[in-house]
């Protein structure tokens, strides 16, 4: 027996930790804290992101209006005097502008509010969109001519910003588009109850407005465009994706070709989305000559993009159906096709639907490829939803836009009020995404089976 070297370490107590243990334990706690901090930072980032968007965007759902009586004098709005909307349409919005301005001035006089501003400066407090609104009202209902109506008039973007705290007296000093005197007058009107800031349905339903009238810009056309594209994606991507997955999962022999397809699909899922935009531009627009920025082209590009997602989800849920189901069907005399279409596919359906909804949600938020196929166009008019002619918006025509692209176009405009609009549009987008994901989660909870 060899001599064991006698330990030269100092005597240790069993109750007090030695320096090394203390160090190691401290390192342990530190490491753990790093982990917690990392999770915390992630969640904090999410919260800051949401708070920033909500803080900037929630106010776009409220809008400032001023109400005063307007006399729709016949000689101005209906010079021919026959109350025919077709003839009255010839009076443009410029014809309505003086009407509004004088009515506003008269209202101030009647209320006994003193101001040294001219008519022009007073009219500048109202939205440039206001004459168009009154005109639309008159054309829709010619009986109003000659009457005095009590209308709620949209106020200009800067005045609106004043009531939302975005514009202050100091910033107005430096702003060419608004003067402190206008803000003071707006405050006086508000104190008398003539100005109201209320929920703004127009933000969700109205079409876009030009760069100088952010207060009138809305998301209606963008929502319709997004809706049509999602329809195209759903109609194309779901059947094609399911068919491809069934083939690859159930029928495909193991050979070079199917290997190639599999590698292909997993790579396509990671190709940058902008590359799909280039594909759409080159193939669908330059080669096949579809209309630029039509929902059809947008939908096709998004379909190609979502297909890998749907295929991967579908294959996973097909794989989750236990082989015993297939064997039982085959044992009772069903053919392979019958066993799959009658038994496996219905059992996999909840998983497929969930995957499809998540793919759709991804497609709904996608922006970059749509920019390349020309969806940045400024769309002022509501599309004629019933039109079947191929050159107007619903499916094949140009002049469509989509929710995320609308956000992008608004960020490119100079008026700071559009930042509020863009954030508001993102809130709408996020609400749609949230709903889709909730539906997916509910579907999974309700129908998913564990084998």
């Amino acid at each position, binding site marked *: 027996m060899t001599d064991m070297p006698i330990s030269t370490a100092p005597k240790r107590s069993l109750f007090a930790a030695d320096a090394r243990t203390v160090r190691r334990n401290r390192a342990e706690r530190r490491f753990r804290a790093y982990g917690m901090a990392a999770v915390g930072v992630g969640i904090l980032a999410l919260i800051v992101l949401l708070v920033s968007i909500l803080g900037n965007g929630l106010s776009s759902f409220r809008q400032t209006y001023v109400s005063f009586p307007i006399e729709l004098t016949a000689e101005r709005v209906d010079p021919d005097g026959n109350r025919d909307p077709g003839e009255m349409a010839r009076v443009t919005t410029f014809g309505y502008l003086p009407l509004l301005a004088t009515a506003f001035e008269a209202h101030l006089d009647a209320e006994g509010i003193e101001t040294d501003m001219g008519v022009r400066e007073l009219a500048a407090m109202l939205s440039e969109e206001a004459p168009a609104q009154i005109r639309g009202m008159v054309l829709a209902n010619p009986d109003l001519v000659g009457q005095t109506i009590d209308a709620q008039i949209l106020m200009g973007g800067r005045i609106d910003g004043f009531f939302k705290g975005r514009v202050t007296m100091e910033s107005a000093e430096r702003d060419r588009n608004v003067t402190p005197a206008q803000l003071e007058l707006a405050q006086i009107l508000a104190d008398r109850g003539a100005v109201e800031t209320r929920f703004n349905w127009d933000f969700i339903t109205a079409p876009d407005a030009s760069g100088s009238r952010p207060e009138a810009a809305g998301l209606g056309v963008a929502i319709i465009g997004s809706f049509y594209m999602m329809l195209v994606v759903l109609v194309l991507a779901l059947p*094609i994706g399911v068919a491809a997955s069934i083939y690859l999962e159930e029928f495909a022999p193991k050979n070079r070709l199917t290997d190639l397809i599999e590698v292909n699909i997993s790579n396509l899922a990671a190709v940058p989305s902008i590359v799909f935009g280039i594909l759409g531009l080159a193939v669908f627009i330059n080669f096949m000559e579809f209309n630029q920025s039509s929902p059809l082209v947008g939908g096709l590009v998004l379909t190609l993009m979502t297909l*890998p997602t749907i295929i991967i989800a579908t294959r996973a849920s097909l794989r989750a159906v236990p082989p015993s189901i297939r064997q039982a069907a085959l044992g009772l005399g069903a053919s392979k096709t019958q066993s799959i279409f009658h038994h496996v596919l219905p059992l996999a359906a909840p998983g497929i639907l969930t995957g499809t909804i998540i793919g759709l949600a991804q497609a709904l938020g996608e922006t970059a490829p749509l920019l390349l196929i020309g969806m940045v166009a400024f769309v002022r008019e509501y599309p004629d939803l019933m039109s079947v002619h191929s050159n107007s918006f619903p499916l094949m025509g140009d002049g469509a836009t989509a929710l995320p692209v609308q956000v992008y176009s608004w960020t490119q405009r100079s008026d700071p009020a559009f930042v509020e609009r863009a954030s508001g549009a993102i809130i709408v987008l996020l609400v749609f995404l949230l709903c889709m994901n909730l539906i997916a989660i509910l579907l999974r909870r309700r129908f998913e089976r564990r084998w």
Partner: protein
Amino acid sequence: MLWILITLLALGALGFVLGRQRAVASAGGDARILHSLPVYYGTNVTLLTLVPALLVLGVWLMAQPIVIDRVISAQLPDSYVAEAASRDLLMTEIRRLADGIDTAVERGAFNGRHALDLSVGDDIRQQLADAGVALGADVSPEVLQAAQSFREMSGAGRTWMTVAVFALAVAGLAYAYLRTNKDLRARNRVEYMILGVLMLASTLAILTTVGIVLSMLWDTRNFFQLYPWQDFFFGLEWRPSFEGNSELGLIPLLWGTLYISFIALLVAVPIGLFAAIFMAEYATKRVRSVAKPLIEVLAGIPTIVYGLFALITVGPMLRDYFAAPLGLGNSSSSVMTAGIVMGIMLIPFVSSLSDDIINAVPQSLRDGSYGLGATQSETVKQVVLPAALPGIVGAVLLAASRAIGETMIVVLGAGAAARLDLNPFEAMTTVTVKIVGQLTGDTDFSSPEALVAFALGLTLFVITLGLNIFALYIVRKYREQYE
């Protein structure tokens, strides 16, 4: 178009009923004698009616415009083409005029006879404008003539297409109907056809890839014919100008892309990795069930949202609290802005992939380490992470490929100036920003300034594809180790 489809579908439905009836009748009403279930006989007839007809319809619809374009373009007198800007522009004009006349006829402004008798003297532009169709320019006799023959050929093409499609549908229906009897192996036939459709669908993935590669290769080739490839790949200047003489060097864009991606990874990798370690090794089930979905929400948020976040919150904040006080610049869009926001976006990519990989490390390795007296963090650092390293590298590479291909964050957060600079608070630009920049707005697809976008796209595609394949290879290789 619509009514062709409706009629075809009606024919298909008719075929179903007829086929089923004939099969049952041939068995004397006793379905047990039939080879297949009666449904299959009906479906067989329907498929034979619809599939060939629809295929021909689809091919015809795609081929007809191309063929007609070729013919019309060949008919244009060369002398006239030489005067106009280019043949492509001329063809666009012709197509627009033909479409315009068609629209006018459709809206009832012209009757068919009037549309055929149009001559240049009639001031067609005004007439069409009255019918609600706006033309870009006045109409020349050559264009009018070409447009008229365009209309004529399209009309004839449509007629022949209708005839061919219906003939094929009826022939298919008749053939399948006559072949139907009780011994026909209808189920097998239908299943073959279904299998064919399934196969076709699965090749679409390959077609997409081929389409991507071909479309970009084609235009990249055109680009390199106009602009030397050495100057593109090694050029240090990016200065496109639409009067010509552009400097279109890739290096500054690539530098911006890599710099931003690097900062993004600098943010995402430590946070994502530590979050993954915490959730896999330390977190209780309850914490995990709350924290993991919350972090993964970050992955579900569209990139435009991150872009806006960079533009309105992070950018101004970095400028006011870091860049301006430090004297490093006063631009709110900067490499740092885009990098940090992109890093936030990438956290869930790194964390959830790493989480899976860490969870896949066998418990026995940990138990062995604990048995030797290691603390939990020592086990993670010295046993779990080395075992999971290849997978984590794969995850980081995937995140890097995301970062390089990301568009909206850099479009809104990084700026547009192409610059070779080290200062992270300076605005720089990336490959994706320039693709968007060169291809939006009115673009002339014969100029190098527009075509360069395709070369950029191809570069991007090759880089990300390489990263992806490498990453997938590493991840897959690693997974096999513990299975």
